[in-house]
């Protein structure tokens, strides 16, 4: 028997969430050993199922790369909260749960009779984690939000990009993932309190506030100095023969950098001896480094600089990541077999837990665990299942 890590063994999670933020939060819980029941609307299922990527770009609800990645290790059921019988079933699942996660529009759960007060009345120990673009209160509560809107209002975009061009968002869905990580940690804070003798409570996660936490320097600069940070690269990128390399020159790096580019005499060149001098003579320095870089390879520069103690980087695209000896050594990417999507390589867990291994299992098919979950937790008979299916409840 392999030694499996399951720090959240025994934790019961009822997951009404859709998409990225909720999906990643309960996936972390599921891989860490929690029993996560993912509840999807009958028919279409989670919105991620309709988003790509798909193999050969052909949409299929069981082959969405985003859905498969975000929903590993969960059990999946379908349940319509639009239907009174669906809401009755949901209330009984709330009795079972330690943690309930949802990212409906603020107020939606209340209209279904499943808001925090209702949940607390059913199960005082239950923790409700609500994720929303702007949280559950405030003047923007009902604003439409999504990735770019959250990055905009949270201060990420203003400081990214070139000073003389339009500001730029970060690629991917960083604010959605940040909200998901916040929901994961918020749930664990509330669980810690409850398991130490406290009660359940409502955890209110705002993606907007997550971005405002992440931007830090833009607000700090204004608060402390009255000046805007504006858009400037935090460290310069240089073009090499096969890509780009990121250079960081702290004071303690200077001698090593001169040595590395074969110009040891520059170490004591008064144009560059300290940070202030290098800033004044940035253009000359850039030219020197640029000339040296042009015919180099990104891997070579990255390893050479790192071996000399300099925290330089290189722009890694997806192929570079898949081929990274570091990632391969740590088995970061993991093959998982899925009954419909087949064997695919996924990003694995980004941390090691003692000497144990994580057990990674494929995402559920739509409604895969209906019979198992509803018969064991709600004591539905096979007839009940047929009836609920016919009525569109599941």
């Amino acid at each position: 028997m392999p030694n499996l890590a399951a720090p959240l063994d025994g934790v019961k999670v009822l997951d009404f969430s859709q998409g990225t933020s909720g999906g990643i939060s309960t996936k972390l819980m599921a891989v860490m050993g929690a029993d996560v029941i993912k509840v999807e609307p009958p028919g279409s299922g989670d919105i991620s199922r309709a988003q790509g990527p798909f193999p050969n770009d052909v949409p299929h609800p069981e082959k969405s790369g985003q859905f498969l990645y975000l929903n590993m290790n969960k059990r999946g059921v379908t349940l319509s909260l639009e239907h009174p019988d669906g809401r009755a079933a949901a209330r009984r699942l709330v009795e079972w749960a330690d943690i309930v996660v949802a990212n409906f529009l603020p107020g939606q759960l209340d209209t279904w009779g499943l808001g925090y007060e209702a949940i607390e009345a059913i199960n005082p120990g239950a923790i409700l984690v609500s994720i929303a673009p702007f949280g559950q209160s405030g003047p923007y509560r009902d604003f439409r939000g999504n990735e770019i809107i959250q990055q905009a209002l949270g201060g990420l975009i203003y400081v990214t990009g070139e000073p003389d061009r339009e500001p730029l968002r970060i690629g991917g869905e960083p604010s959605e993932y940040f909200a998901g990580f916040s929901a994961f940690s918020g749930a664990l804070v509330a669980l810690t309190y409850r398991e130490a003798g406290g009660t359940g409570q409502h955890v209110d996660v705002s993606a907007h506030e997550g971005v405002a936490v992440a931007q830090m320097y833009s607000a700090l600069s204004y608060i402390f100095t009255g000046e805007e940070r504006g858009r400037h690269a935090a460290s310069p990128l240089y073009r090499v023969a096969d890509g780009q390399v990121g250079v960081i020159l702290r004071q303690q790096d200077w001698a090593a950098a001169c040595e590395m580019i074969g110009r040891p005499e520059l170490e004591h060149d008064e144009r560059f001896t300290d940070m202030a001098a290098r800033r004044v003579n940035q253009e000359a320095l850039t030219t020197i480094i640029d000339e040296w870089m042009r015919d180099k390879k990104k891997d070579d520069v990255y390893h050479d600089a790192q071996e000399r103690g300099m925290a330089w980087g290189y722009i890694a695209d997806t192929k570079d990541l898949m081929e990274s000896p570091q990632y391969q050594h740590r088995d970061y990417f993991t093959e998982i077999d899925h009954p419909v999507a087949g064997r695919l390589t996924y990003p694995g867990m980004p941390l090691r837990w003692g000497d144990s291994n994580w057990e990674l299992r494929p995402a559920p098919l739509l409604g895969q665990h209906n019979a198992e979950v509803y018969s064991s937790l709600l004591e539905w008979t096979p007839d009940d299942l047929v009836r609920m299916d016919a009525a569109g409840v599941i």
Partner: protein
Amino acid sequence: MALALEGIRILDPSQVWAGPTCTKILGDLGADVIKIESARRMDIARGDVRPMPNGMGIYPENEPGPDPWNRDGKYADRNRSKRSICLDLTHPRGVDAFKRIAANCDVVIENFRQGVMGRFGLAYEDLRKVRPDIIMVTLGSQGGSGPEAAYGSFGITLEQTAGVASITGYLGGDPSTSGVLFPDPLVAVVSVGLVLAAIRQRRETGEGVYIDLSQREMTTSILGDMVMDYTMNGRSRTPIGNRHLVFAPQGVYQCRGSDMWIAISVETDHDWIALAQTISHPELAADPRYATAAGRREHHDDLDALITTWTSTRDAFIAMSILQAANVPAGVIENGEQLVKDPQLVSRGFWEYSGPTPAETLPYLSRPFKFSKTPGFTRSPAPPLGAQTDEVLREVAGMSDAEIAELSELGVTEDDPLRFS
């Protein structure tokens, strides 16, 4: 008001951003966080001991003051709700004191380069000897194993090496990094839950654990769809500027005033009709070329020009109100001042104030979650270097006044960085 994490004690030699932000949040929520540095090797977020004019430091009113290492905004923001102690870990008595403190802590969180804690004699195995069920978390750059295990990084490095930069950049342009060093706060916030999961496991099983986290891998883990596109289709994605792979139009549009912009994102055909009507082009809503997202993506440049015509004469905040009232996703590109005054953030009490001195009465970032019964708050301002050294040695390490005086005489608890610079 109840504190969720009361009774949990954290020993925190972590530095810079990710580690200190994680422990700040734990401290705000009730944990007793003991930040450990030495006057010789302070947290670099404290900035220079003798800062040069126009250096990297961020000081209240641009005034470094006599103790700039206690006044830098980066330090002040990330180290609230903690106690600060100084121990020279290159001295055997410093190591001994560390262990005696650790014996009464639940968790040690560190982010030194691989091998540094081991060279101090403070690796997980060493700490288990003084507290068998201790939990140790290393927020490593690359994780503790593999050919690049000893490599260092900052957030800006990780954006590059983890893949975020490969899909960040102007449409058709080079990949680029962000202006915010996103990986650090990302790692900080998820680590809060990881620490608590380890504490839960210890309560259930009686056993501690060593957690080896790779910040690079954690950063790649937010790129699930990007990686899956490669494994499914062999495609390495490239920057698409402010656009979206599906939603269209989506972009950042110029508004009235200097460097004022608004983000607009059309998710559905219904959103498109609402946008077309709002920007006074109802005929576009009926134009078959723009009826589907695919059509709108094909004519994206034309639509951007039409939208800009509408936004460029308007105040960004008014434009946002008009668009949101029409149920179109829109948001102002907020700068630092606008963030501090943001009605939503202000209304929800996002900015926190922590004390009486100038650095402490400024607004600070709080947390990305709110708790109905255990809210958490800035319990104390970031402590001056070594402010609680004696208190912690007495209360937590159980040292006598004579022992504490001896450590001071030996220079092990020296807390004046001016003596080393």
